[in-house]
Every structure is written in C-alpha cells, then in structure tokens.
C-alpha cells in the first residue's frame, strides 16, 4: 500500500482537509461554538463553587455553642486560629493546595478532554451512515489519515477548551502554585494533546464498526462518569478505598490531571511530572497504534 508514496505532501493535505471539515462544523456554527464555550464555565461554576470544600472549615460551620460560655475570649481566639490553621493544613494535606476551587478547576480540564474525545466516535458513525466515509475511502487518502483526522479534530477542540478553562478559572480566582511560569501552560497543552490522542483513538476504535448511533452513545454513557470519578480529577485518590485506588492508578486521567496540577497549582515536583508525561505518552502511543491498526483493518475489509 505504501509503495506509491511519491505523493506524501498531498496525503498530509488530505489530513488537514478532513480535520478542518470536522472543525468547521464546530467553529462555523455559532450556537455550537458558543455552547462549547459556555459548557466548561457552567461546569466549573456548578462543581467548583457548589462543592466548596474549603468553606466547611471556615467560620460559620463551627459555632460550638456549649463551649462558648466557659471559655475566655483569649482562649476562644486561640481556638479560632487553631481551626483556621487546621483548615489550611487539612486542605494542604488532602489536596496539596489550600484552594479547592483551583484543585477542581484543573480537574475540569481532564473532564473536558474526556467528554470532547468521547464524541469523536460519534462522528465516525455519522460519516458511515451518510456515505461520506465510503466516498473518502474511494479516494487516494490513506486509511490512517481518515482515522487520524478524527483524532486530531477532537484533540484540537479539547485543547482549545482547555485554554478557555484556564482563562475562566483565572477569572474565578485560580491560585497558581509557587514558582509558576506562564511557559508551563505549554506543558498543559502538551499533556492535553497526548491524552486526547489516546482517548479519541480508543473511542474511534470502539465505534468504527458500528452503524448505529446508539452504540457510541451507550459506550459514552457507560464509561464517562466512572472513568472521571475513578481518577483524581475532583478528589484525591489517597482517600479512596483500595480497589478504587487501583483503578485510579491505571487511569490515564489521573496522570493527566496530576501533570496539569503540577504545572499550574502545585509547587512543581519535576520527578512526578516526568512520570505523568511518560505514562500519558505511552498511553497515547499504545492507544493510537491500537486505534489506527484496528480501524485500518476494518476500513480495508
């Protein structure tokens, strides 16, 4: 199949044409584009501000009415500052940051990656049902290009959304880690690229054989939330039961989220970051290989 590769420039051209076709559906449709911008804002507002774990420890929650009369004002003040310190140390201990909102805003970035890539399988089914896939298959575009254009468009979309989430999170009061450097944002995009390539390859491989739109829907419904909550996206894994921790430990979303946190809100642990990148990188390569090989085999049936 590849002995006729004198035209490699044009094959790359096909890749961009197909990717751009997918993207145009998104950025040329004002409503869809607007919704995809609003969505992360909404989620962040709802999840981040509703689950305000920090607020549990601050004033208001502890009134201690029975103790109050027997304590002197100075004792009371001591107790107050003790609890304030407790709040900081608990949050620091649990989340590695004192601001739960920052912790969870970063989780949102993985969340978006997962959701956007999940729907990439859907567009394959549509293309098959509408005959577009067959038309493309009859042109000299390589099979791998067809699959990869889907992967790439989902990846670019979620990278755009990730950038947006960071901006929105800053507006909502994201607290950067000590030693944060704006260049680290590039690292965020890099890890997003890797996880999105991996995830969408898998979803495409799952759905490429199906001719019914219900199949990818069912797959998405079955695994999206379990995959999300069996990771450290919204809650640290160390408080999870052992069996869940095991799942979270192999879940690539855990490593993605951790990498983004290391880059944005923690005081960066470079060894841990290197481990995260390696894990997600291997995941991306393996998933993309599986996805492309499976799709290729199926497409050249």
């Amino acid at each position, binding site marked *: *199949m590849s002995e*006729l590769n004198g*035209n490699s*420039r*044009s*094959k790359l*051209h*096909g890749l*961009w*044409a*197909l990717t751009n*076709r997918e993207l*145009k*559906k998104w950025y*040329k*449709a004002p409503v869809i584009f607007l919704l995809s911008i609003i969505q992360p804002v909404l989620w962040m507002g709802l999840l981040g501000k509703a689950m305000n774990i920090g607020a549990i420890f601050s004033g208001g929650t502890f009134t201690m009415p029975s103790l109050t009369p027997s304590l002197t004002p100075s004792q009371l003040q001591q107790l107050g500052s003790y609890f304030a310190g407790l709040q900081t140390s608990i949050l620091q201990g649990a989340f590695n940051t004192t601001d739960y909102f920052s912790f969870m805003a970063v989780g949102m970035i993985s969340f978006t990656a997962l959701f956007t890539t999940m729907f990439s399988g859907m567009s394959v089914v*549509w293309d098959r*049902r*509408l*005959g*577009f896939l*067959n*038309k*493309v*298959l*009859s*042109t*000299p*575009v390589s099979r791998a290009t067809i699959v990869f254009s889907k992967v790439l468009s989902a990846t670019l979309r979620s990278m755009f959304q990730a950038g947006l989430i960071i901006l929105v999170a800053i507006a909502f009061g994201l607290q950067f880690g000590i030693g944060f450097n704006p260049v680290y944002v590039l690292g965020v995009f890099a890890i997003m690229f890797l996880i999105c390539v991996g995830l969408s390859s898998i979803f495409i491989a799952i759905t490429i054989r199906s001719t019914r739109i219900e199949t990818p829907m069912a797959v998405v419904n079955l695994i999206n939330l379990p995959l999300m909550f069996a990771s450290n996206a919204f809650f640290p894994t160390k408080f999870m039961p052992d069996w869940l921790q095991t799942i979270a430990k192999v879940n690539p979303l855990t490593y993605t989220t951790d990498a983004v946190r290391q880059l944005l809100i923690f005081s960066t642990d470079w060894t841990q970051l290197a481990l995260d990148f390696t894990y997600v990188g291997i995941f991306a390569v393996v998933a993309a290989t599986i996805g492309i090989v499976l799709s290729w085999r199926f497409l*050249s*049936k």
Partner: protein
Amino acid sequence: MSEGVIKTEGLTKVFNKHLTAVDHVDFSVKQGEIFGFLGPNGAGKTTTINMLITILKPTEGKASVLDFDIAKQDDEVRNVIGVVPQEYTADEDLTGLENVLLCADLYGIPRSIAKERATDLLKLVELTDFKDKKVQTFSGGMRRRLELACGLINRPKVLFLDEPTLGLDVQTRTATWNYIRKLKKEYGMTLFMTTHYLEEADALCDRVAIIDHGKIVVIGAPQELKHSLGGDVITLGIREDDDVSELIRKVEHVKDAKRENGSYRIKAEYGEITAPFIIEALRKKGYTVTKLSLTEPTLNEVYLEYTGKSLRDAEESREAFAAQRMTMRRARQ
C-alpha cells in the same frame, strides 16, 4: 493496454462466511462506453461497485481498472477513478464550492488548480449561482449534481455512478441523464453505473449486465437483449372472419401468429419492416386490415425473461428506503 478498461474474473464477495453477495462475476467494460449494472435490491450491484472502487476487498477472484489490480494496486486505482455514490455525501454545513474543494484536497490537488477545476465543474453541472450557498439549502437534484462535480474533480478516466438518479423526480432524472451523456461525449470517459430503472439503462447504457442473486444472468446491448426475446409483437385485426394465421406465418421474419379474440398476435423480428409485408400478403388474398399495432419489447420484458420477476416491486421498496434515508439525514440537524 488491453481492450477492457474494467475487467473482472470470477469476482466474488462473501459476507460473514456464508452470505454470497457477488458470485463469480465475469465481465469487461470497453473504453468509452457506458456500462450498466441492472438488478433489483440486494442483487449485488453496490457490492460489485464497492469492490471496483476499492472500498471492499474481494473474497475471491480478480478485477482490474485500467490494468491496475483492485486488490494489490488500490492506490493507483483510486487515483484514476471518480465515484458518485448512491448517498448524498456532500457536507451539509459547507457550501457547494467548499465541498468540491474538499474533494480536491482528498486527491491532493493543489489549491490553485483545484479552484479552477471546481469553477469549471460547477459550471458544467449548472451550480455556479449556488456555489456559495450551504448544501443544506440544495434540492435533491442539485445535491446529485454536486456529487457529480465532486466525482469529476480528479479528471477520472473511469467514472463510477451508483444509482445516479435514485429518489429524483422525472425531470431531474432526465436532466441527470443529459449530464451523463455530455460527460461521455465531451471527455470520452468510460462510465460504469448501477441502476434499477430499466428506462435509465435503456436510455443511457451502451451495454447492460443484468445481475440477480449475485450472478450475471446476461450481458449485451439493450437492443440486442430485446431482440433476443424473439422480436416485436404485432397485433392485427381484419374485417373478414376467416382464420388467416397460417397465411401470416408464411411471411418472412414472422416467427409465430396466433388468433386471440378475433385479432392476431404476431411475433416477428424487425416488426416495423415486417408489418407492411404482412399487410401486403393479406391484401393480395383479398383481406382488409382494419387495425394494427406494433409493440417493441422493453427491457422490462428482458428482465422478466431472465430473472423471472418484475423490477417494479423492488423499485418500490427502494423508494421507501431512499425516503427513510432522507429523513435520517434531516434528523441530523
């Protein structure tokens, strides 16, 4: 290059190990002709075309397009063919021009050349005025023409059309035929098409292959096939009450004559030439011909003869299928 532009040898496709969609099919399409594949739903037409355009691999047998093996040299085949699929595959969200340019990109045609060709092709299919309109707003006929423009963007030597007029109204169908004829005439292109409309095969194709249950039952020019049925049918009435069937049978080219309800049903080759001779023979014996009609066999009769069933039933279910497909497409929005 040898004579056949498309050649198949024992081409077979079996799905799921036991469903034989195409069963040892042999045919050869000549340079510059319109070759039609005629058959009902599920006869194996689309499966055959899908193998020839390299999107399905044959289970058995061989086929080549312009001497490129469809299984081993699929990339070469894809470069020289154009495909107009059964479905409307143009992207609804893109404009007519954007769709044609997308097709050009798939063939790796540089932008400057692509723009020039796209403009010419949109003119050819009379869509120039609509090129910047989204395909959503296009009618069925316009969509079909757009597909045609897309299929021609790489200047194919062989064009494959899968049910080119499916779901179109009569006027649009006739207009589409004209485009197809124009292509053949102006570009000397070889066309391979599938259809289940007999009148379409009759009007367009130089040769047709009738396919049923995955097998080719007969191949030939539509005229030839009609003749193979034993010629035309002449119905004739005379004023007198005598039985003249014996007399009619003696006329040259008359194959059979039967008296039915006071008139005669005559099977004859070249009916339009034979009929005057019959009248002459009867007049010589003093009989007066009061009425005469001539019926040429249609491809439908050929079809009936070879497959033992009418195409009409199949056609109906096909229309229903097309309607359903339309609904589904709309549902996407």
